[in-house]
């Protein structure tokens, strides 16, 4: 598979999704995610798939959920304001347990913000943006190669766990073009979602041991009901406190049962480091560069990079942080992931913030300077 390509992060997302079997895209133009829609518009009809430009992001989210009800793998892509508009239907997909993938190419906000500038301001929105308690998986690649592989993985996780999965990109990663050399480990497998077992009564929201009920595609002979009202195992609405509690704990707890499969974290020179950097997305590129140059100078610094950012890899952070002199959390926001890092280390290691909110990427130099101050 060692084939080299020049790919942008946005194009890589599309290639990864197609490799995982995505055949439906609905979206609305918005900078800096638009190239994703453009590429799907070109590629999907060639594969007999459907590209749909909807009237807004709310409709885009509704359309991919509808398509997914028929068993078709479906994706949307957006940015900033569009991501905010999608939140209600993301919550719907979470409670109705309809697989779908949302690629959010983060731009600076709030509101219209700086549409062409990068940001990591949606780290928390991606986890908590809908009303109520809802599960979600959020994956943040940091190279075009990884955008390919991780978007493919996002599709598969969504199908496996019946949960919306967000691919958290940013403007830099979306728009940069780089040489990508795919290796065997990048190969995206196409999987099918778990269907009803023949000869067994079908309960669309069964409290299965693995937390994930089987999914019956619309039009396959299982006439059942899907609703955003809290429902019992049959899928019909309930107000019964015991049934509500059971459903909500299963839906919100199912990812915890599969953390090992869902989590993915990269460690760079973390073992013997005195100073540990915790970074994700484009900022992790700067952090990686800072680690490389500081190591060349013999300085003990390392990085932990959550690739799956939600569920947050608190065990990985806690283990890597043990005995360190300090942790640095560089982010293009006013401090979102740092709260999760602080929670993981629970006061055992001092945690330092490094934030930029001027529409520019945090540079390797800025990270280096802070590391050197702390050493």
């Amino acid at each position, binding site marked *: 598979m060692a084939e080299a390509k020049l790919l942008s992060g946005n194009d890589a997302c599309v290639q990864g999704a197609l490799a995982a079997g995505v*055949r*439906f895209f*609905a979206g609305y133009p918005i900078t800096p995610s638009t190239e994703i829609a453009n590429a799907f518009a*070109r590629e999907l*009809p*060639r594969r*007999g798939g*459907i590209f*749909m430009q*909807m*009237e*807004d992001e*709310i*409709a*885009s*989210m*509704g*359309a*991919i*959920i*509808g*398509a*997914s*009800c*028929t*068993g*078709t793998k*479906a994706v949307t892509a957006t940015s900033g304001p569009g991501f905010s508009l999608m939140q*209600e*239907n993301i919550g*719907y997909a979470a409670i109705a347990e309809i697989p779908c993938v949302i690629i959010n190419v983060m731009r600076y906000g709030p509101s219209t913000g700086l549409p062409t500038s990068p940001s990591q301001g949606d780290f928390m929105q991606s986890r908590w943006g809908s009303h109520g308690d809802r599960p979600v998986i959020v994956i943040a690649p940091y190279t075009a190669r990884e955008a390919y592989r991780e978007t493919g993985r996002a599709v598969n996780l969504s199908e496996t766990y019946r949960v919306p999965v967000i691919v958290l990109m940013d403007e830099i990663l979306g728009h940069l073009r780089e040489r990508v050399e795919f290796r065997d480990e990048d190969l995206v497998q196409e999987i099918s979602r778990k269907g009803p077992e023949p000869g067994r009564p079908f309960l669309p929201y069964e409290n299965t041991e693995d937390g994930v009920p089987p999914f019956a595609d*619309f*039009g*396959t*002979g*299982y*006439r*059942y*009901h*899907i*609703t*955003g*009202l809290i429902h019992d195992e049959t899928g*019909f*609405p309930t107000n019964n406190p015991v049934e509500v509690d059971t459903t909500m704990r299963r839906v919100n707890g199912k990812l915890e049962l599969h953390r090992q499969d869902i989590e993915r974290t990269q460690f760079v020179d973390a073992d013997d480091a005195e100073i540990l950097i915790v970074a994700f997305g484009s900022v992790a590129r700067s952090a990686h560069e800072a680690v490389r140059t500081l190591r060349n100078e013999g300085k003990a610094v390392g990085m932990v990079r959550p690739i799956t950012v939600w569920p947050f890899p608190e065990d990985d952070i806690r283990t890597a942080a043990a005995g360190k002199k300090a942790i640095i959390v560089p982010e293009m926001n006013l401090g979102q992931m740092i709260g999760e890092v602080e929670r993981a280390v629970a006061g055992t290691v001092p945690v330092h913030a490094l934030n930029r909110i001027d529409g520019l990427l945090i540079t390797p130099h800025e990270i280096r300077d802070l590391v050197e101050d702390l050493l």
Partner: protein
Amino acid sequence: MGKIHEKYLRMDKMPHIWCAGCGNGIIMGAFINAIDRLGYDKDEVAAVSGIGCSGRITGYMDFNTIHTTHGRALAFATGIKLAKPRLKVFVFMGDGDAVAIGGNHLIHACRRNLDMTAVIFNNHIYGMTGGQFSPTTFKNKNATTAPYGTTDPDFDIAQLCIGAGATYVARGTSYHARLLTDLIVKGAEHPGFSIIEVITHCPVNFGRRNNFESPAQMLLWQKEHGVAARKAKTMPLEDMEGKFTIGELYRSTEIPEYLEEYGRVIQAANEEKKQ
């Protein structure tokens, strides 16, 4: 209805939540009669609804059913139909659902002309939340959010849909139940986007505040104010004052159905691929 209700309704979900005297049951009855007449296989029917009293209809009918978010039923339905064109897709919305919060989706669904049939329950009020005025409440009516009378002009849903490009538009009522079945059958058979607006009655949250003493009085109002579209054409304009037309209001077969058009896209993309 004979045994039709047993064939098409989820009888274990009865009693329904609708108030005594509500028009929604009449519309559901007209709909399942239409499905029976069309002879559709229940496994091949997808019923999609929004939020509000009308939204509950999908829970009671034995098809592939989905109760979506407020105003967004058409967006979900669009995804279902495009991804599995074989399915017969029906969409159920209320007036607030379809022309307030979901107005954008409605006009674009009309414009696209994807082969689906939408039934809009127009009871001129937000019933489930307790009687707030909607975009179709007539002027000078009482509502909980209009204790001194409504000031907003009202939308004519059928005309709005014709203007937006729907290729089959009809209006029925909960009084003219047989006509409603006919209109739904014709809408379903029409190859394109069909809208059936149903003037229905909410005795509890509209009638009670607006001088209707009983549900029967509201049905009589529909009988007296609904004028067959064909007859209306021959009537002097002043005689139509305060009345509305019922029956098939608009039909066009000139505009291609959306998926037929999309077939051309797939063909063009594949020809380009071969080159």
